[in-house]
């Protein structure tokens, strides 16, 4: 019977779906049925003899100690919900019942365990459900079970939860509300929004879902607590973002709109309303309403855009003008996208509108400015040209084309060098290369250009570098037709050459004249004096050899002849002096005027042979040709002596003064003087103010003096009154010794 019973039990054990196993008190596994093999993955051979701890997760080791403790005391552990680790590493949730095994003597020596993967799905669902979920006793509000999400989210451990009630997780002000809930009918009043407090003290907003269940045979509530704090915040943020969007729209003058194709209704954002000149409440427009704002000239464009946008399904843009109710015109840029439904049909159109009035006006102005520049470039008289580093012409204005007789189509690939006379090409090419290499090269150049028809023109070009991002990308030339100027210059040059030739010719003629004059002077000196001397000589011989045969009248006549030949001789000498002076170069040197004047006075007194009172002041020196200045003094002093010769007491005063940059010397006598009315004649050649019978003279002396002084850059003048003496002045420039 015992064996039969045993076999039966063994059979039941072996074919049970439950895992049935036995172990010693120290945990060594002693038996292992088929069910255990399925649930834990180990075969009987593999696991028997091993310790049970191989199956227990580290966190549940204490659990096992508790269980063994109960077993030792002979207690039963029933439907203990726990988890174990399979051979393949996976966790398996089991419901465990453990009972003590006794030997024949009734001593507990091991334990048998029955493990069932019981309610596994629900357990998993509960514990792994991502939202905090728990079960509370409806009478005590005690937590009976809580899932992982609750532990994770609230910060209390599983055990802490189980020691608490649902009241404990509520902040003070909500505790009362929770306790006072009317639970007479059901417990659904606890549904809805609540505030919970987490272990760290933070308060969260939760939305409670609740159902009534029976747990462990007791009426309980299954609670799902959805934390909506972030959702609330997100809603707040959304509100905030919407506000900000509106602000941004307002600032950027960008509005948005939505168009529903089914209804044809267009909803405008606040800023869109402002752009269209509408109040915020007038934000709903029919297509008809919308089109009534569009500027008539742009209406076709806008309608075409609406049609296009519905056909293209892509992003479309359009620029148009609107006329607001108050008549102001605004420039609008609009861009929109189509939203399609699940069947791929367009449902909505979302778009933005941008008020670009100011930008457009600025752009227009810019265009006008550009237009103005363009006009300047085209109307300027210079040919303007931009070329690249290879000399290829990139741009040229009309004037440039005109200069070279080109058509605009000729510009394609044109290189300026082809239109430059060959002799100028090397220089221009060299400069161009150096300029685009960044060197500073003379920017002006004149060269001969070749027109398309082969004719040549003179051009003046001013070149500058064209930069882009700091690099030379070409050059810009302003080219001017200077053919006329060149012609004028050439003519002028010819004229100068002619003039120079004429001057040369004249100089040669003058030199010839000078030469003739010298020959003439020579002849005068030599050939005129000889006959004079002969007349004089023979008159003298006549007088001497035949003196006793001539009467007094004949003697007088001979004397007249002799006197006149002598006067003529003197005249010739003085004229020669005068002529010679013209040719003579001044030999200037520093001259001591005091000693010069002393010498001249001595000479004159010796010639004159009568006492004359000389008062001589201290005279400043001068830089002059002292041979010639000596002649000046001789003339002036001899004149002073001569013209004062009839005075009983002859007096000559010599002094000097400084006037500006000149020294003025003066010679004053107490002679007969002259009438100032004739003072102009004083210095003329052969001009005399006195009769020959009164005072001897040729009329050449003062003329010679005037020439000498003038040649020195000075002046000569005289002051006098008839009968009251005369004063002669001459000035010499004060010069530093060379």
């Amino acid at each position, binding site marked *: 019977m015992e064996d039969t019973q045993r076999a039966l039990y063994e059979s039941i054990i072996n074919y049970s779906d439950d895992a049935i196993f036995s172990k010693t008190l120290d945990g060594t596994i002693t038996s292992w049925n088929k069910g255990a093999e399925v649930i834990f993955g180990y075969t009987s051979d593999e696991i028997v003899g091993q310790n049970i701890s191989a199956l227990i997760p580290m966190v549940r080791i204490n659990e096992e100690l508790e269980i063994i403790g109960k077993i030792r005391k002979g207690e039963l552990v029933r439907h203990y919900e726990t988890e174990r680790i399979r051979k393949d590493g996976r966790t398996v949730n089991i419901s465990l019942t453990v009972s003590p095994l006794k030997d024949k003597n009734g001593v507990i020596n091991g334990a048998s365990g029955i493990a069932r993967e019981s309610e596994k799905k629900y357990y998993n669902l509960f514990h792994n459900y991502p939202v905090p979920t728990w079960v509370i006793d409806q009478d005590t509000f005690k937590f009976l079970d809580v899932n992982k999400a609750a532990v994770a989210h609230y910060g209390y451990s599983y055990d802490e939860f189980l020691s608490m009630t649902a009241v404990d997780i509520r902040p003070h002000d909500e505790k009362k509300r929770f306790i006072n809930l009317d639970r007479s009918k059901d417990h659904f009043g606890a549904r809805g929004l609540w505030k919970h407090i987490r272990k760290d003290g933070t308060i969260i907003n939760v939305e409670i879902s609740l159902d009534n269940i029976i747990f462990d045979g007791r009426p309980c509530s299954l609670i799902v607590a959805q934390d909506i704090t972030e959702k609330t915040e997100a809603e707040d943020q959304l509100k905030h973002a919407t506000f900000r969007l509106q602000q941004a729209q307002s600032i950027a003058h960008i509005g948005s709109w939505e168009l529903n194709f089914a209804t044809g209704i267009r909803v405008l954002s606040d800023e869109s309303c402002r752009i269209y000149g509408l109040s915020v409440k007038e934000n709903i427009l029919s297509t008809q309403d919308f089109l009534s704002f569009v500027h008539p000239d742009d209406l076709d464009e806008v309608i075409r855009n609406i049609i296009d946008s519905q056909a293209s399904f892509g992003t479309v843009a359009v620029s148009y003008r609107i006329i607001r109710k108050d008549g102001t015109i605004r420039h609008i840029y609009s861009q929109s996208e189509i939203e399609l439904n699940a069947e791929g049909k367009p449902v909505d159109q979302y778009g933005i509108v941008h008020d670009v009035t100011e930008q457009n006006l600025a752009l227009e102005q810019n265009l006008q400015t550009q237009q103005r520049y363009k006009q300047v470039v085209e109307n300027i008289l210079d040919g303007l040209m931009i070329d690249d580093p290879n000399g290829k012409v990139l741009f040229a204005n009309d004037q440039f084309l005109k200069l070279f007789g080109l058509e605009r189509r000729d510009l394609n690939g044109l290189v300026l060098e082809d239109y430059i006379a060959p002799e100028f090409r090397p220089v221009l090419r060299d400069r161009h290369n150096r300029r685009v290499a960044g060197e500073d090269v003379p920017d002006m150049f004149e060269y001969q250009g070749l027109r398309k028809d082969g004719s040549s023109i003179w051009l003046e070009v001013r070149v500058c570098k064209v930069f882009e991002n700091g690099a030379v990308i070409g050059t810009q030339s302003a080219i001017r037709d200077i053919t006329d100027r060149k012609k004028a210059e050439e003519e002028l040059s010819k004229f100068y050459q002619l003039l120079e030739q004429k001057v040369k010719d004249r100089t040669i003629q003058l030199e010839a004249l000078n030469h003739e004059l010298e020959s003439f002077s020579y002849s005068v000196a*030599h050939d005129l004096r*000889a006959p004079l001397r002969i007349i004089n000589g023979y008159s003298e011989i006549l007088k001497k050899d035949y003196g006793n045969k001539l009467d007094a009248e004949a003697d007088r006549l001979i004397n007249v002849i002799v006197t006149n030949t*002598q006067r003529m001789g003197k005249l010739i*000498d003085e004229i020669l002096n005068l002529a010679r002076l013209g040719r003579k170069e001044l030999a200037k040197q520093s001259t001591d005027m005091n000693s010069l004047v002393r010498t001249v006075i001595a000479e004159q007194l010796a010639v004159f042979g009568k006492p004359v009172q000389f008062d001589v002041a201290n005279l400043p020196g001068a830089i002059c040709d002292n041979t010639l200045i000596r002649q000046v003094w001789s003339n002036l002093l001899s004149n002073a002596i001569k013209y004062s010769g009839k005075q009983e007491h002859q007096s000559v005063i010599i002094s000097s003064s400084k006037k500006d940059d000149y020294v003025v010397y003066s010679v004053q006598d107490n002679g007969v003087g002259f009438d100032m009315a004739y003072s102009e004649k004083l210095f003329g050649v052969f001009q005399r103010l006195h009769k020959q019978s009164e005072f001897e003279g040729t009329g050449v002396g003062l003329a010679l003096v005037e020439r000498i002084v003038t040649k020195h850059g000075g002046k000569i003048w005289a002051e006098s009154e008839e009968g009251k003496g005369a004063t002669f002045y001459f000035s010499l420039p004060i010069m530093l010794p060379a």
Partner: protein
Amino acid sequence: MIDQQVDILLIEDNPDEAELAIRSLKKSNLANNLVHIDDGAEALDFIFAKGKYAGNTAQSRPRLILLDLNLPKIGGLEILKQIKANDHTRMIPVVVLTSSQEQRDVIESYKLGVNSYIVKPVNFESFSRAISELKMYWLVLNQPPV
């Protein structure tokens, strides 16, 4: 051909001038052997014993030459140059007697080695005195190399 001692050779183309000069020279009785030649080329022939004077002896070389500058054919400066370039004639004193005061004539004459340069005064008395004095000086007072 002249083989007697010539005191003065007067080279002057103007006969009237020459007469006045000769008259003045003859006032003093000293050294009265005077030869007058009125042509430059002939003067050179005389001095260098050429042409019609080929037979001139060394004795006929003048002790003093009075030379006018303005002469036909061969000018006075050319004659002076030849005299002073020749070893035999270089020692003969040559006095230029001329109407020209031109500096270039004076300078050129001195460069060629003239012994005196006299500008003839227009006044006959002065002229006459000057002639007498220069004759006295060169023929009597002056000691030429032997």
